[in-house]
């Protein structure tokens, strides 16, 4: 394939990804070129395209279901001013529930309750459902056939990762024990701010 063709393909892919309103899968890009180019070529070109945006306000990221452009997180505060938005932060309860589902999936509500030591708040689970971050993937063969909850591809896409393996590893508690007390105080202070929403 000549250099001219490659640069042409790159421009086409750029136009496709910039005008897309959702994540674009590799397959969709292959279709655009009537499968005349290989998946490897697409991946290579997307990588090159992404590198062109390194020094820019937007970035091209690879997520679970494909590729999408997004604004760089470091500029969110400016965007908030432009759109007059105040981003909501999830409470600890929401994040802990999400963490259990993400790291221990598939899990039942009962297992989440056991782990957190408190009754599950149905609003929290609903909130995660509404965000399309979790879904029911089956039922446990137990009395009442409890639902088994797992994270969705949308969750991976939104987290900007391609698979669950890319989540930060579960912290080793023996190491965490070295936490200085100052850290703990800051942690508990910051929690108060987090309680603002939900």
């Amino acid at each position, binding site marked *: 394939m000549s250099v001219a063709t490659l640069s042409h393909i790159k421009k086409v892919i750029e136009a496709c990804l910039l005008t897309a309103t959702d994540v674009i899968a590799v397959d969709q890009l292959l279709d655009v070129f009537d499968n005349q180019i290989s998946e490897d070529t697409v991946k290579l070109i997307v990588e090159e395209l992404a590198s062109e945006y390194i020094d820019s306000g937007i970035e091209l990221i690879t997520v679970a279901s494909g590729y999408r452009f997004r604004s760089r997180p470091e500029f969110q505060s400016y965007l908030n001013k432009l759109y007059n938005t105040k981003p909501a932060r999830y409470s600890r*309860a929401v994040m802990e529930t999400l963490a259990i589902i993400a790291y221990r999936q598939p899990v039942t509500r009962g297992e989440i309750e056991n782990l957190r030591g*408190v009754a599950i708040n149905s609003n929290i689970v609903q909130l995660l459902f509404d965000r399309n971050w979790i879904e029911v993937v089956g039922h446990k063969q137990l009395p009442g056939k409890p639902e088994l909850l797992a994270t969705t591809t949308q969750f991976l896409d939104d987290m900007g990762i391609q698979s669950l393996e890319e989540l930060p590893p579960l912290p080793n508690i023996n190491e965490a024990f070295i936490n200085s007390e100052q850290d703990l105080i800051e942690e508990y202070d910051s929690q108060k701010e987090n309680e603002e929403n939900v």
Partner: protein
Amino acid sequence: MTFTPITVNQQEFTELPHDLYIPPEALQVFLEMFEGPLDLLLYLIRKQNIDIKEIPITKITDQYISYINAMQVLNIELAGEYLLMAAVLLEIKSRILLPAPAQSELASEEDEGDPRQELIRRLIEYEQIKLAAENLNKIPQPDRDYRWLEILVEETTPELPNVTPEQLKKAWQTLLIRSLTSRSQHHMKKQELSVREHMTQILRHLQENGKSNFFALFKIEQGTAHVVVNFIAILELGKEGAVLIMQDEKMDIFVELAVE
């Protein structure tokens, strides 16, 4: 809000003196911060830099219960889990206080080892998830930390099949031939045919009957003049965008109202 242990006269205070005044609202905010009994226990353990695997159960139980009492005094709605945990702690404490059973064949059956084991396991597991949740929360989230890019592209109108002038000409010729062959036995009075009137008729016909075959719009028996005017009317409607002139796979020409 937290109380850092201080040393006074070589004695360490890990709890506020009882006669120290704390505004109840402040204490309430602090106590309501906990996500449950495990979280409160972890706080007590971490605050004092205690190795989680070596919990001094008596001390922690006493502290835990004093917090529970504070919550009750402040009328904080106390979830049942808090009381359950108090019971668990007291049970562990009482088992530790009991002399270890003499090594016997009976012991092997119910060898539970350290009574704290299960609690320690749960605390470690919870702390792990608690920290994992914090890490998870550091990952940029859409709308909170970034926005997906969406360049708006003007909605395109659906592609309609093209009708070539050549095809229209052919259709016209067909009509003409038909009208000529059926050239009627009688054509008595001259009709005043207005293109606009035909346009209205066509539109009305399409409104009532929907999509129509091109030929069905013509009344051959009305003579050539009618056919000519009607044809012009269709072209005029097409030009004004009032109707769509389309062709299907079988090359039949259809006329349809351009809705909207």
